[in-house]
């Protein structure tokens, strides 16, 4: 509570921008400090201290996303070395659930933002296209949790998925066309009709966070 009183204006500003309640921000702030060991910024190494994250097959990509400037500010690119609490909140706000009072336009924007986040995660070379190679990497990582699954099957799955994507996005291609990669527009097209409401939301509880850190 103390911190809330000390910087109420800043808090309100943050709350407005990210859509979190001040309570949630407070909890997240506490967590942030826990992770950063009371520093003002967080570095990649800090995420290593989360034990549960270790088993996540795509942890690298997720942690990376926190430092991806494209996710932090519009019109910027590159990779940040460290992020402050505001950035941390910005990333977290991608996972905010939909609110009841949102209108169609807001919902659409919300959805686009979320998908953009995912897209950036896939597009590791920042060229605005998920190429086959990038897709393969993601799928390989995704399936790496299953020790019985060979890398090659993962790859063939990625190929199949890419083909599917091409057929969805471009439809029937001329024989001489080559599908180079999934652009963000294609990505949106692929998600059409798929309900992401349940898929990309985390409920940020108002209760005390459980400390998992060492």
């Amino acid at each position, binding site marked *: 509570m103390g911190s809330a009183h000390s910087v109420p204006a800043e808090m309100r500003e943050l709350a407005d921008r990210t859509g979190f309640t001040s309570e949630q921000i407070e909890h997240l702030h506490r*967590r942030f400090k826990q992770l950063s060991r009371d520093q003002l910024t967080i570095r990649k190494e800090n995420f290593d201290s989360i034990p549960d994250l270790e088993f996540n097959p795509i942890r690298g990509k997720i942690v990376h996303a926190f430092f991806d400037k494209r996710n932090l500010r519009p019109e910027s690119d590159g990779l940040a070395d460290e992020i402050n609490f505001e950035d941390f909140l910005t990333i977290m706000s991608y996972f905010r659930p939909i609110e009841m009072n949102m209108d169609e336009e807001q919902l659409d924007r919300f959805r686009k933002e979320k998908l953009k986040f995912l897209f950036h995660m896939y597009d590791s070379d920042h060229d605005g296209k998920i190429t086959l190679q990038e897709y393969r990497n993601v799928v390989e990582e995704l399936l790496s949790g299953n020790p019985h699954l060979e890398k090659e099957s993962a790859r063939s799955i990625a190929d199949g998925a890419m083909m599917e994507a091409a057929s969805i996005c471009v439809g029937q291609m001329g024989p001489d066309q080559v599908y180079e990669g999934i652009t963000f527009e294609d990505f949106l097209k692929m998600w059409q009709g798929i309900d992401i409401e349940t898929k990309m939301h*985390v409920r940020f509880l108002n209760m005390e966070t459980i400390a998992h850190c060492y």
Partner: protein
Amino acid sequence: MRQVSGVGLLLGLMALPAALGQRSSGSPINSNQTQSFAIVSFKWEHVKEPYIITLWILVASLAKIVFHLSSKVTRVVPESALLIVLGLLLGGIVWAADHIASFTLTPNVFFFYLLPPIVLDAGYFMPNRLFFGNLGSILLYAVIGTIWNAATTGLSLYGVYQTGIMGHLNSGLLDFLLFGSLIAAVDPVAVLAVFEEVHVNEVLFIIVFGESLLNDAVTVVLYNVFESFVTISQENVTGIECVKGIVSFFVVSLGGTLVGVFFAFLLSLVSRFTKHVRIIEPGFVFIISYLSYLTAEMLSLSAILAITFCGICCQKYVKANISEQSSTTVRYTMKMLASGAETIIFMFLGISAVDPDIWTWNTAFILLTLVFISVYRVIGVVLQTWILNHYRMVQLEIIDQVVMSYGGLRGAVAFALVALLDDEKVRDKNLFVSTTIIVVFFTVIFQGLTIKPLVQWLKVKKTEHREPKLNEKLHGRAFDHILSAIEDISGQIGHNYLRDKWSNFDRKFLSKVLMRRSAQKSRDQILNVFHELNLKDAISYVAEGERRGSLAFIRSPSTDNMVNVDFSTPLPSTVESSVSYLLREKAGPVCLDMQALEQRRKSIRDTEDTVTHHTLQQYLYKPRQEHKHLYSRHEIMHSEDDKQDKEIFHRTMRKRLESFKSTKLGINRSKKLNKIHKRDRGQKRRNSSVIPNGKIPSENPLQDFTLKEKDLEFSESEENNDYETLHLGKGVDFLANVTKQNFTDTPNGDMDHDVEMTEYSSSDDQLNQNQSVSMTPLHFFPSCLQMPWTQNYSSLENRGNISLSSVSEYIASCDPNVPDLFWEADTDTNNKETANSGYGSEVSYKSENSQEENSLLIFEGLEDSYMKEPQEKKMLLDVQGNYRSAAARRVQSRRSFHRPKPLQHPKLQKLASLPASCHVPPHSLEQEETQL
């Protein structure tokens, strides 16, 4: 009309035996003197009971057929309502015939035989993720909601009774509460029956349906508690009894769940070891889950919960363990039993109502019950949803609440429970029974009828059935991981956190114990979707072939290029084990064709069709084997048809590959094939020691993957040797013909092919022109080398940073004798066929004349240049390197999409040198050879 006449017939049948039965019982006495052996005796009494039951089931099933004769009726009126009405009719007729209600739905039959299949079906096919995702809401509605309904309905009725509107009843508060508790529960059977036809969105469905399943525990406990309270009478109910009741709720519900989980574990474990008793494999599913039901019943726990959770928990492991056929069997049997039981339940509900003895009319009581259950349901739902929406991520909106309130159907469970009441203790039993029947009829018929228009009117979000998409699954998986990571990072224990931990635990321990090793491998859901898609594609492919009576569409390479993903992007390590490329190939053709299929349907090529049809008739559809007159109870013999189907399938797959290869390699390849085919007819095979498997490795992956299941069947060893030698030849001929066809098909640059050219679209014509430009120099290349070249060339174009020298290096690295090896395989099979070799090559030869001349020329040149290849290659490359017309680029990029690619030939080489373990299992290799 038909129904009625059917019923009349049935009644006649039933009346007849009754009359005959008397006579036959009398006859032995009369025939005492003779004591002769009766040739035919009529023993109606002997079979009476099962006979009547079977007849009833038959009537119900026939009725279903009749209902569905008119789709208009079933679209408007739910089947359950129709069945109840039919039951009423039948009951009326039976009653009119002999004035006794002989057939009623007895609680015993209902709880022991009719309910379990329905609930098991519900559990076994429960969408687990959805169920557990909404478990909190479901539990709230099931527990609190049911208690709320029971209490308010019972108390309100009692309150109204006190005012005296209902007149005099012999019931106290406890009787009313007892009645409230049995009428409160939403019925799984009714909900399923109605909601399955409505198709509301899955979240809504799972909440209503889950509630109806899980509220059983509450109902059972409330019912038992109040029944015992009624027995010991009001004065003796103490606080301790109430506490006992609450405790017993937890015991009953948790106990039932535990019993279910235990039996699910057992079932999964058993299913792991049924490999050699495939035939009875499906039986275990039913037997063990039924045991769970009976066990829970025996321990007076919630039997419905037990069998539900048995189904929910075992489904994953059982489905992974049992064979595809068994799982189909389980699916169908379960659906059949469930739907049969449902049919019977509703029909007998109708029949049971026709019994004047049970009817006690009390307008106020009945009407008020109807009003109370509806009103309190609405209030309950609204209150609980209000609470829930504070915690739910996906909010339940007002429309959802309306549907949920309206979907609170009561059904057979309530009826069976009320029929169980002891009329010694509950003196108003008959009133309760009649009210329950009215309530059930009202909810099932009236609400069932109106819920569909209501859902449409309110525009409730509906489920749309989507094809499984690979991308969707992949992204879904990514989301799961992201969400759990975000929860980890933000330090919360939420849904995703728990799910993540569970799936880790499952993978590490449970699956290891409960799943077959082979199943563990392929268990991944994404892989399943992938497999499913491939299989579906293959099936539709064969079906398409059968529909058209020809497999001509397989070889229309111009349509194969619907989706051009540039798979030629350089792989991270070109030195990677060649097996990986083999495996990688698996995916390609199948998926491609899926998308191309539509297009193919449109492209009609009549001439080809006739030719192929001819070929098929000649070779493929001939009965090729003697029927085996074998009977085995433990094995399902594959019928001739099956075999043929499989063979067609097999060949189709193979041919697709063939066609892919030919499009990949371009014209020269097919020319070469024919050429070599001719030349090598009598020639000994060379180098066969280098690649014992010939070209098979390049084929296998596809089969290996798409036919994972079928593999076993394909490698049936029953194929006898005579047959092999006899028909091998034809197979090869067939293939030869096909490749010949390919040749004519392939849009090539030769201008002689005006006829074929006209068939292509104008854009294709354009393309042909381009190709002819770009291809001409390539004619002097061995086709196999041409391929890698174009590959690399295009990749070069794409990336723009590979130097030409690296390309030529790469080509140089291709062993010059690779082409030889490659074709050796063909001669290999050729030599094997002893009987028909001449015939086959002749056929392919004759019809070839015009092209042959061209190719001969080319080939002469090719053979000559063969020796000095490296230099020439480089030279040509340089020429090509500068030859960067847009047209050429287009063509090359076009070719580049064909997938298996760059390393096709190096791969073959490597395969030969790989340890045997890296290969596909030997039997499948052999299979490859013998089949064609």
